[in-house]
């Protein structure tokens, strides 16, 4: 079984409203030194005889929208 982790994040130039809300909530808790928060998605995939190029294809076609999101693939075995 191959296992992969895919991290999907909004491109830095885009407003991450969830990240802003979490940042402000952390400030209200007293963590005033927090400068920025970005909220993304972690997708874990287990597959039989998988390879990274398949994951790459999944990312491009479904898991991320390359127009607005970056993705990062990690082998998680």
């Amino acid at each position, binding site marked *: 079984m191959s296992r992969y982790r895919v991290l999907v994040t909004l491109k830095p130039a885009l407003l991450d409203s969830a990240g802003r809300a*979490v940042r402000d909530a952390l400030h209200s808790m007293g963590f005033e030194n927090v400068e920025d928060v970005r909220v993304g998605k972690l997708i874990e995939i287990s597959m039989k005889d998988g390879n990274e190029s398949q994951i790459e294809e999944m990312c491009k076609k479904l898991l991320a929208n390359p127009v607005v999101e970056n993705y990062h693939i990690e082998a998680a075995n």
Partner: protein
Amino acid sequence: MRVAVLQSPGSNCDQDAYHALRDHLGFDAEYVWHRETSLEGYEGVVIPGGFTYGDYLRGGAIAALSPVIEEVKRFAVEGRPVIGICNGFQILTEAEILPGALVRNAGRRFLCKDANIKAVNRTSPWTAKCDCILSIPIAHNEGRYIAEEETIERLEGEGRVAFVYCTPEGEVNPEAAPSGSSHNIAGILNERGNVLGMMPHPERAISKLLGGSDGRIILEQLATAKV
């Protein structure tokens, strides 16, 4: 009786709750913004439903940090009436005023329909008058109540399960729990019994003209739930 209806960014049942309390039940309801630090002068609190902060992280997670929630914690400890409905229930669990959590519905669908519930234990002020099966609307995506088994045993043992989902005949079985809640739980109480969290919306069942009035019997207890 002055009742605070809390408003946060993303509250969307605040006006329904205000209307139900003020125009139908005769409470002196007032909106209170989440940044307020005092609930002095109020005798009860309603935390209405909605999608506060877009449900970012988890439903209710960010609203639970609002300044006004510190006052809700004081109300909880002092035995004053507090009801959290839907997202308000999620806020109460995230603020650890009530135990457990509300997660994605078992059927993975947003549910918007009437649900039948009944009071399990009628010794609490919130449930004392609920002697029949109530039809109250639900409208949620994350309404499946879960908690560790020992927490649920404690809730049941202490008579703190306020409402369970049931069939129209009053039978409690897993099929009657629309969102798949553990032990059919629709609403729970804190230890003192003055804080009620529930997923169904009593403020939407306030007059026959709007489809039913079973919610009145619950909201009316704001007047009695001081313990």
